[in-house]
């Protein structure tokens, strides 16, 4: 089970803030993204429209990290706090 989170503009566009993915075939971030792109009709175009940031277990990474059961993966736009 992988917990997927979306934030800010991305969560608005997808109409989704949180998702649980229960697929044994997802081994890394790229496979997860592929799965999400096929999750709903318009998700592929939204997820590919710009380069979203990604955090695995609450640490930002641009790598294709290997995923394990219980991992938390978040996708979001560039941050704008402060």
């Amino acid at each position, binding site marked *: 089970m992988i917990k997927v989170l979306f934030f800010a*503009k991305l969560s608005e566009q997808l109409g989704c803030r949180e998702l649980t993915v229960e697929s044994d075939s997802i081994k890394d971030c790229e496979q997860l993204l592929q799965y999400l792109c096929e999750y709903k009709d318009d998700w592929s175009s939204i997820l590919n429209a710009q380069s979203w940031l990604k955090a695995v277990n*609450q*640490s930002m990474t641009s790598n294709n990290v290997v995923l394990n059961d219980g991992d938390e993966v978040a996708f979001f736009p560039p941050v*704008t*706090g402060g």
Partner: protein
Amino acid sequence: MISVQEQDFNQQVEYDRLKCKTSIGAIVTFTGLVRDINAGQSVSDLSLEHYPGMTEKCLTDIVEQAKTRWNIIASTVIHRVGQLTISDQIVFVGIASQHRGDAFAACEFIMDYLKTEAPFWKKETMINGETKWVDARETDQQAISKWQHK
């Protein structure tokens, strides 16, 4: 002290908290406020979303990095979330050190990294009622580079 909170904060209270040892010779504070105009448009309100859990972890990491580079006796980072309006306080970074050079550098370093790494997102409501997510600024990304050559 690191806090992500909806409620406002008080300058004197935070200053008094930082001033905790007689070895402190310098206290530098930064406060970020909601401006009335952003990217040329008149703002009426601001809402701040964040990634609970990662936010606190990220701010802790940034402060720890600062502590490896400069002498820091006490530090405070407060970031508000939720609904804010013009001139409201958004963020506070305070550093207490023996000497001013450390306090200035650590305070600006923490703000620069907070701006590009901490998972906060601003959504503005304009005075015409329109809402829009604030775009990340290229200048914030550039501000990071000055810490990578020192």
